């Protein structure tokens, strides 16, 4: 798992630069994604997790920093051919399966759009065969190919979205809240499908969500974002057992668990950003308190966290 597929270095994404309503949606975020892993990204709405995903795949042009995919920069000047190459390797699954599929296209055309653009099928027959194969991979069947999105339920649409992403044989998939709009029982179906595909095809996922229990289940490592900053990054189990950053703690304490007894005794921890008391010239950055466990902190906090770490 040591091989890095994606390196995100000091990524910045600002909106409305220079105007009074400037927003630092992503502010100096650095992390790596290893080949074959699932990295979960969690945080409140507005914390910049979706923007991070969208900037990585170049739906936005980054304000600063780098995104290296297999050592090559994704951003910066690119010829059409180069862009096409990246687009084939990186795909995205969106949150809302009702809004992300074109209602006027048949399922076959939606799935085959990438195949057509990249010229992956030599004949009409081959193209359709590929579509049928993809439909079967995601648990739909051949007969669905000529239907329109409105004929499908939410879970089925999300499967179509996944089939579309898989059509160009990507290595890396960004899933932006892929299950938030689905029912509990259907969520499990889609998550199981994503896990199976990862095993079979060796995919790498960036899984963006706010449902922490599902994120923990699917992810190998988890990053927590707060106001455009990555505040903690750790292996999934470690993050839940040894949350260090006060924001992570408050987030964990807020998840309702399907267990009435633990709910009766729940104590919620509030996060107050001013509790850090950072000095003006203090250097606050990501520091590694244990192997693979990084926390955004100052030198002083770093010592404290290290002492607390079990």
């Amino acid at each position: 798992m040591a091989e890095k597929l994606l390196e995100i270095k000091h990524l910045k994404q600002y909106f409305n630069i220079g105007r009074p309503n400037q927003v630092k949606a992503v502010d100096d975020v650095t992390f790596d994604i290893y080949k074959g892993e699932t990295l979960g990204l969690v945080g409140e709405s507005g914390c910049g997790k979706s923007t991070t995903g969208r900037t990585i795949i170049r739906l936005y042009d980054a304000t600063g920093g780098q995104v290296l995919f297999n050592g090559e920069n994704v951003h910066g000047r690119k010829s059409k051919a180069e862009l096409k190459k990246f687009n084939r390797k990186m795909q995205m699954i969106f949150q809302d399966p009702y809004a992300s599929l074109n209602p006027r296209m048949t399922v076959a055309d939606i799935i085959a759009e990438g195949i057509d653009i990249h010229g992956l099928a030599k004949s009409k027959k081959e193209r359709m065969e590929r579509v049928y194969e993809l439909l079967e991979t995601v648990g739909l069947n051949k007969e669905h190919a000529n239907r329109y999105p409105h004929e499908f339920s939410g879970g089925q649409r999300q499967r179509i979205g996944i089939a579309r992403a898989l059509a160009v044989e990507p290595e890396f998939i960004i899933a932006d809240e892929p299950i938030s709009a689905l029912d509990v029982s259907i969520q499990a179906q889609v998550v199981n499908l994503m896990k199976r595909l990862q095993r079979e095809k060796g995919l790498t996922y960036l899984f963006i969500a706010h449902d922490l229990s599902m994120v923990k289940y699917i992810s190998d490592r988890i990053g927590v974002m707060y106001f455009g900053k990555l505040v903690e990054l750790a292996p999934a189990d470690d993050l839940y057992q040894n949350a260090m950053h006060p924001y992570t703690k408050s987030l964990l304490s807020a998840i309702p668990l399907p267990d009435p007894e633990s709910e009766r005794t729940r104590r919620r921890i509030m996060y107050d950003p001013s509790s850090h008391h950072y000095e003006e010239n203090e250097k606050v950055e990501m520091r590694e308190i244990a192997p693979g466990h990084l926390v955004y902190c100052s030198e002083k906090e770093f010592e404290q966290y290290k002492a607390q770490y079990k």
Partner: protein
Amino acid sequence: MEKILEVKDLKVSFHVYGGEVQAVRGVSFDLFKGETLAIVGESGSGKSVLNQTIMKLIPMPPGKITGGQILFHGEDIVHKSDKEMEKIRGKDISMIFQDPMTSLNPTMKVGHQIMEVLHKHQNMKSSQAKERAIELLRLVGIPMPEKRVNQYPHEFSGGMRQRAMIAIALAANPSLLIADEPTTALDVTIQAQILELMKDLQKKMDTSIIFITHDLGVVANVADRVAVMYAGQIVEIGTVDEIFYDPRHPYTWGLLASMPSLDSDHKAELAAIPGTPPDLTNPPKGDAFAPRNQYALAIDFEQEPPMFQVSETHFAKTWLLHPDAPKVEPPEAVKLKMRKLSSTFEKPILVKEGK
């Protein structure tokens, strides 16, 4: 305990182009004073239609109450006219909706939206109503209510808007509050705040709450009792402990097993419920859940199961509780949490029709 609401064998249908959709197919339950009943189920299970029917908010036609009674404080509201309902809605029964952005009026100041209720139901004068509006905003935890009362919904954040909605809903001291997925659109931290607020206010005002959600974590947090709905029927109902620690219906098992808990194993596959809910234009013969149910018995495809009573408060609608049914083992994830509850009867009792 005092019964606020009794729903008896309620049936609701919609006449649409393709035929008659039977959205609610014979639902009965009681609601007591000061308690919270959570209703869980997938989309299309009829939970929202059920509650809109209690408010008589479904459009008629195409909707129609085809049978049953809704007794609110002992009075049947099924036959009440719109005019009569207007006196009840917002005053005795009020509702909080899922999306606070679309349910608040964007062209009206928040304060005015609260005062509207006070004018209509409590005949308050403007100055008095405004004071009460400020008081209500303070009650739901909005800082600087004197300033906020004059602002528009777009100046509020999502969590704040939901708080304002709650203030409107509680303005006339209703005895029943229906909350339809009130926290689904909110972040976990904000969700926790809103849930705490609702529980706190319930204690102060002794309101009964019907809480609709599909998040079982939220259910465990707020509910006193839980009703599980599937295909327009209540398939299991019981206290929150009975549903989480001693569930009897395979659909409830499925729901509980499909949620990963924080200590569940990464490697293990989630126990998803296969397939999708049935089409209620032609509800399947027998048990509606049978085609998706790995525990289905032959009789499930022939005959609808009756309600069985498992304890004083716990009912489940499944043939598995019949004395002749084979013993089955619930999924691993459910078994882990199973425990024997003291109130459980030795043997499930068949409930006769018209309980």
